[in-house]
Structures are given as C-alpha cells and as structure tokens.
C-alpha cells in the first residue's frame, strides 16, 4: 500500500460496508461511547455491579465477533498460519468482547437510576 492515511482508511471502510452502513456504525459506536461517558459522569464512578454483570457478556461478544469474521470470509481456525493471524484473531475477539461489555454496562446503567443516597 502506498500511503495509508486516515482518509484512505475511511474510504476503504466506506467501500466495505457501504457509506450508509459505515457511518451508521460509526454513529452507533460513538453513541455507545458517549452514553458510557455520560453515565460515568452521572454516577461519578464505575458501578461495580453493572460492570461485573457486563463482563459476563464479554466471552459471548468475543466468540460472536470471531465467528462472524470467519463466516464472512469463508475461513476457519485451521487457516491461522502465523503469529500475526493469532494477533488478528485476538484483536477481533477483544473488539467483540469490549463492544458487548460497553453495551451491556450502558444498558444496565440506563435501566436503573443511580443510588439515591449518594
């Protein structure tokens, strides 16, 4: 690749998903992030109970993300050929785990009001 700029990357991702889906996903990811920051500020702390429950969903997110990528690309675990492949697999898992954890935390935090007596 000649020059890998942010502009090129955005152009490529737009082509992968289509402009509408790509920007929708960016907006959704931003909204979840902002919602997380919002509840952090509102609650003034990370609620351990929400986090603990949210973390339970992490393995599901990780496995789902990996299987999704493999399904979309006609490939499987036996195709892993070198260290970089393991790293890509782990990053895919971490992204899926992180995404679902954030989402689960935010959903719980919105469903329940913060403690009244603080």
């Amino acid at each position, binding site marked *: 690749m000649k020059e890998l*700029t942010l502009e090129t990357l955005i152009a490529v991702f737009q*082509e992968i998903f289509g402009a509408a889906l790509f920007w929708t996903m960016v907006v959704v990811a931003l909204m979840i992030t*902002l919602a997380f*920051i*919002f509840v952090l500020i509102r609650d003034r702390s990370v609620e351990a109970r929400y986090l603990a429950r949210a973390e339970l969903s992490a393995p599901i997110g990780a496995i789902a993300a990996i299987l999704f990528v493999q399904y979309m690309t006609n*490939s499987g675990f036996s*195709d892993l050929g070198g260290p970089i*492949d393991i790293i890509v697999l782990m990053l895919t898992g971490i992204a899926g785990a992180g995404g679902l954890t954030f989402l689960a935390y935010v959903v719980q935090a919105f469903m329940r009001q913060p403690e009244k007596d603080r």
Partner: protein
Amino acid sequence: MNDLDHLTASRRAFLGMAAGGLALAGAAGPARAEKVKTTASIVILGAGAAGTAMANRLVERLDGAKITIIDARKRHLYQPGFTLVAAGLKPADYSVSRTGDWLPRQVEWIEEGAAEIDPEGQKVVTTGGKTVAYDFLILATGLKLDWNAVEGFDMNMVGTGGIGAVYAGPEQAAATWGAMNRFTDEGGKAVFFRPATEMKCAGAPLKYTFLTDDYARRKGSRGRVQIDYHAHSGALFSVPIVNEKVRMLFDDRGVNMHYKHVMKSIDPGRKIITFSTPEGDHETDYDFTNVIPPMVAPDVIRNSPLPWQDGKWVNEGWAEVDPETLRHARYRNVFAIGDIAGVPKGKTAASVKWQVPVAEDHLVADIQGRLSPEIYNGYTSCPLITRVGRAMLVEFDYKNNLTPSFPGVIAPLEELWISWLMKEVALKATYNAMLRGKA
C-alpha cells in the same frame, strides 16, 4: 446537591465535551491543495481501473481542463474478483458494476471504442467516426486476450467438457467453477499453464492450481486427482524468491511441474492439449483445464506508432514508455498506465494504484511548467491464494526485490489468514476507493 441539579450539571459538562470532540474531529481533515487552472484537452482511452482512477484524480487536480474518456464498455469489471468467482466463493455479479457509476460528472464519456490514434496530429478517431483532438493522451486501454491464438478453443465450450477460462469474464469464471466443482467430485487429471506473453496477474494461474488442489483435499478426492502445472519458461514465477517458494509449495501439495511448455492448441473431442517445448510438440490428456490465451495490446495500439519498435515486445504491441515516469519515449504528451504500459512488471490493479499518481503528477507538472519528482518503481502486488482461507501477500518491484507493505508484521512468503482476509474483504474496497481517486 439534589438529583435534578446533579443531572443538569452533568449534562452540560457532557455536552461540552461532546462538542469539543466534534470540533477536534472537524479540524483534523487534510487541507486541500489548490486546483491547477488550465484549458488543456486530455483524452483518456479506456475506462477500466487505470482510466477511471486517472479521470477522478485529474478532476480533483485540475480546474478548467476538458477531460474526455473513450470506452465502449458499459460494464466495469473488477477483475481481481474472477478467482473468487471461479472458486465458488462469490457470484458472477460480484465483479460487475456500471462504467458510468464511477466516472465523475465533469468528464465527457464517449461510449465508443477508439479506432485510430494519430500522435503526430494529436487526435483520436473513435469507432463511430468522431475525431477527438488532445493536448495530452493517456493510454489505459488494457490488453487483449487473444483467444484466436488458441487453436481449437471456442468460448462456448467454457464450463463443458472440463474446460475452464477464468480470465474470460465473470460469467466464464462462474462456469469454470462449475467445471472445477464437478472435476474435484469425480477426479481425473487437471492441466494448468500460462501463456508465454506478458500477462496480467501472473499469480492467477498458480492460485487456481492451488485452489483446485484445496477443493480436492476438502472433498476427499485428492487421491483420484492428478494436477500438472506447465510453466512457459524455466520458472513458475518471474521473481526468483517467489518462484522458489511456489516450487516448494507445489512440491508439498503434490503438483507435478513442467517447464518450457507453451500451450498451443486444445482438442476438446479427444481431450488433448498440445504444448510446444524445446524438444518439439508434446501432447497431454486432461479432464479439467483453465485456458489462458496469449495476451497482447489491443489492435488500436498495435496499429498506431505507439508500441515498442524493437526488442522483445515487438509482437505484443505494448506502449513504449519510460518505466519510471510512464511517459511515452517518443511522444512526450502521451502516457500509458495499467496493462497497456510496456514495462517489465505491473499488470495488476495494485500496480495501477501506484502508476496513476505518477503519470498524473507528470502530466500536471507539464501544465504547470515544473518537473515532477514522482517515480514508479515497478510495484506489483499479488495476494497469492494457496488455499481457501490462506494467501501469501507477494509484493515486488522492477528489481525483483520484495517490497512488503507491512514489514515485520505480514511476512511476504508465508501462507497467512490475514493475507486471505485482505483479499476477501479489503481488496475490492481498496480497489473501489482507488477508482474514485481516493486511494
């Protein structure tokens, strides 16, 4: 502090932070260079990968130029997808889009072929009889698959009798998958080869050999399948270090290798392919094959004064350009990009991505009266599929040096899943971004 106050204060802080973030994101965009004013007439022959990318980039660089693109083809073909179609992984229409959808509005598209080029008079005559004058001419015609040079071959045979032709087009690639799928069910002898001319994506014949082997293994029929690969020269691939790796992999997969075999004719009735070799003609039977014809410059280029006048390409007709600037050796206002360029490497879409900005900058520099420092080093890239799910990301230049894009991260001569992911997911997207002049 009561709850309501708490919430309001938090919201304000939150909104402030969000606004700050957006402002930062907005400021990070790159500054656009000012467009160059000109009244030059630029004619681009061909609206394939190179011509379309060039049209979109020139529109961004120039203000007031009259840009005309001449191409009769209404379909734009994403050719790197043909292998995936022929492997049964994508439908034929995966490779098909409309030419017009990629062309910028500011460019005039003449939906005719080019019939005649007069570089002395600086004009092009179209198949419809229109005469188009130019100040700059960009050759992006692609090449001609010379099917007539394959004795005994008829395009209607593709998909029947074990005959495939991945290069012929998306429909033929899909028909080839049908034939390969049947062959790997039934077993028999697969015969693969490549032409002795320059060719686009010299890795493609190898990929299809690997894929046929892979399907036979997956189906459990490899024991009933014989695979023979015939190289036209003494090597499987022109880059020595890649050649050695492919030889090792073929050895590992049980592919029989033959050298200095140039395919001459096919007899579908007797199921015989004839190769010419230094020892004379050699006949071999086949149950499945992927016919790849000689590749030459299109007639409009061959019949013009633009091809090499001497040397090894006299009979193939590639445009005589400087390998580093892609500027024509005898007509300074003519450039050639993509398959038609008479340079030793670079008949891939990845090469186009590197060639177009170079030719573009030399053209714009001419208009501005400056010298361009841009140079094309022969960069060519090929995600060499070695089975479904794995590929080697092979990148090299004129000197046969490997030029890995991600040194130390993606090893060039390793069969990797990440290289397959790139081919499957990122490549078409990068290609499309390139067509739009964005990559």
